[in-house]
């Protein structure tokens, strides 16, 4: 569980490390991201395509004057993409990385809930072997009888795309 940021966990009254996560659906799978990194949730709207970038980069949008890249999380995780519906949303995350505060939008099928999970409940990801993009999942937990996968959202931004970085 070293991948999860321990500062996300706050002590509650029972002295247990609790952290809040926003959960959302991709297809039928439930994913979670640290709520402290979530800046806002926007309804999906058309983006401006950027040429010569990877498929998963949908494009860029204007969020109150800032140019923010929007990533199709389905494609990023290797799940086939799907047409936007009325439930499709963009989760705008704002993360403090080395280069300063960075914003990124993630397209997901729908948002679900905010859950509180203690650190001990989160298990490490089972070894899938050579599954593509498994580096973006940093843990799993059972919440209300559903498996929740924890997204390593920092890594979504920091992993360089070699094919475009080289040009």
């Amino acid at each position, binding site marked *: 569980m070293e991948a999860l940021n321990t500062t996300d966990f706050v002590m509650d009254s029972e002295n247990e490390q609790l952290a809040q996560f926003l959960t959302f659906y991709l297809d039928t799978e439930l994913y979670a991201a640290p709520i402290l990194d979530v800046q806002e949730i926007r309804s999906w709207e058309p983006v401006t395509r950027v040429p010569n970038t990877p498929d998963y980069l949908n494009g860029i949008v204007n969020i109150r004057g800032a140019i*923010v890249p929007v990533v199709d999380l389905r494609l990023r995780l290797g799940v086939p993409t799907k047409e936007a519906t009325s439930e499709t949303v963009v989760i705008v995350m704002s993360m403090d990385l080395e280069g300063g505060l960075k914003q*990124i939008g993630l397209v997901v099928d729908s948002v679900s809930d905010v859950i509180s999970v203690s650190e001990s409940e989160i298990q490490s990801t089972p070894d899938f072997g050579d599954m593509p993009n498994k580096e973006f999942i940093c843990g799993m937990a059972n919440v209300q009888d559903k498996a929740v996968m924890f997204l390593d959202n920092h890594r979504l931004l920091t992993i360089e795309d070699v094919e475009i970085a080289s040009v």
Partner: protein
Amino acid sequence: MTTDMGQFHEIFYEESFELLEGMESALLELEGGSDDTDLIHTIFRAAHSIKGGAGTFGFTNVSEFTHTMETLLDEVREGTRPVSSDIINMLLESGDAVREMLEALRDGTEENQARVASLLDKLNIELGRAPGAVASAEDKSNAQVDNQEAPAGWKICIKPNPEFFQSGNDPLRIFRELSELGELETIVDTGELPDFSDFDPSQCYLSWELNLFGEISREQIDDILGWIDGDCELTIEAQGVSSSDTVQNTTSPVQTTEPETTVEKVATQASSEKAPAVAKKPAPVKKGSGSIRVDIGKIDSLINMVGELVITQSMLSLLGEDFDMSRIERLRDGLDQLERHTREMQESVMRIRMIPISSTFNRFPRLVHDISKQLDKKIELQMIGESTEVDKTVIELISDPLVHLVRNSLDHGIENPEDRIAAGKAETGTITLSACHQGGNIVIEIKDDGKGLDADKLRSKAIEKELISVDDNLAESQIYELIFKPGFSTAEAVTDVSGRGVGMDVVRRNIMSLGGIIKIESALNQGTTISIHLPLTLAILDGQIAKVGDEVYIVPLASIIETIQLKPNMINLVAGRGETFKLRDKFMPIIRLHDVFGIESCESKQLSEGLLVVVEAEGKQCGIFVDDLLGQQQVVIKSMETNYKRVQGVSGATILGDGSVALILDMSGIIRRWQSNNATLQLVDDKVAAL
């Protein structure tokens, strides 16, 4: 508290650098023969202010050094010491040393102690004292100065007037604040207390004697006690050596209470002993934090504009409360007004980023002074249009290339005095640095009256270096362009100043990256003029909106030469694939933006159906094929790198009127992308052919 101190430090550094600059230009003016006492006063004041500030912050090495400078300057000011060029040079060097020390403090690095020590020795010799043995009166007073600025403690007597409380003074609060500065000992004198029957609770009968220990500056105490000054009898005395043990236990670099017998050699050792302690201080203020000094007039005009905008806004909202179609005219007027105000406001905000180019030009008198001395040449520098305003980013990026160009002119352009006289010119060469606005550009010119560029020599040199072939027939201007090629140097001997053949290509690259162009004009034996054209700002750009498929892109207007509609007879195919067109007898490649950007929804497959935008980038011309042109607009450039990364062929993004994002094209990137695309195609072809 540390962050607060960091803020003050930064202001101190900024002010000191400014003072040093002022000092330098005054010194140079002094050397130019002007005998103005005002100049000496300016220099003296600069040294004095830096000393004071450094003392306040405990930068002892700086304050000691500037103190020695000040002593020398004092003698000059009093007229007991004549102004010689030796002294001026020494003071210039000292100014550099102070700057270095301050930079070292700011960046948390180590300064060049040997240099500081040797300079200090030099100054002391000049002052008629033996180096090293500086336990003279001078340094004692130096120590005393420091004592005044940060003594070991203070004795404060407060004897309030009876009406003390009526002005809202609260002694308790004062004591509490004082105790935050250091250890506080209070002795209260209740002798004045009257009998209970005469007691008036609104009057103050007490007086206090306070002993405050710790390194506290007078200013800090004055900040607190300044409020009650006038309502009481106040005496503040420094307590020196009595509490020396308290001070020596602290790790602070201010060793003010050192016994005076060991003050010997302080001057030489001060920097070596104290600098590391200072360097370790946890104040690594980020270099170049990007603050800007703005003329108050600009801010005022901006505030006016905001006021207008608020009025327009309230007018519109009033109109909106009960709107009917009869008021449509007024709505239109209001919207027009809003647009006008917004545009004006945008302009005045942009003006805030503009600073006079003198901030860059100011360093040249010194540079010319130093280099002409080094090269034994007589050179005069003229500067025109220093108040021309340019965007801060442009100024920051242009200063290094400018220094390079001026060095080149000094080294290669201007001849030795003997050669000049032989050529029938004045002994003193002239370099003119000028800046002016020309349309939306700023033009900076570096002009010298030196020997000029020798086209024949350049040509043979280029042939020797195999940059051109013997048969190449180049126009003179093309030959001059050769000096921008990497590895090209005309200097016969490599000197310290220039001539290594790196540089001019870097200069050109830097200027191009700013969206500017550089031109050379030269006449043999008459001189060379290098002119740089730069956009005024990097934040706003005149753009042409182009439509490609369903996408909308911004083409920088500056890179567009013209736009034409192709007729089928203008198009030629090269090797069956490469499309070129002929424009006024020149062949140019056609780049289909659809292909480069991989846009599928392509309306016009036929070249004659769309438009061809003829652009120039990095000296190459080519035609960019787009579906349609929509209009021209000023756009605000937003960086893609803030949240994403650089994309080839795209220099940034902007937000259009409807809130959507459009990409701003980078023509040279597109051309490079197109060339590499073609290269891979070629590779595939070769493989197919090989099978």
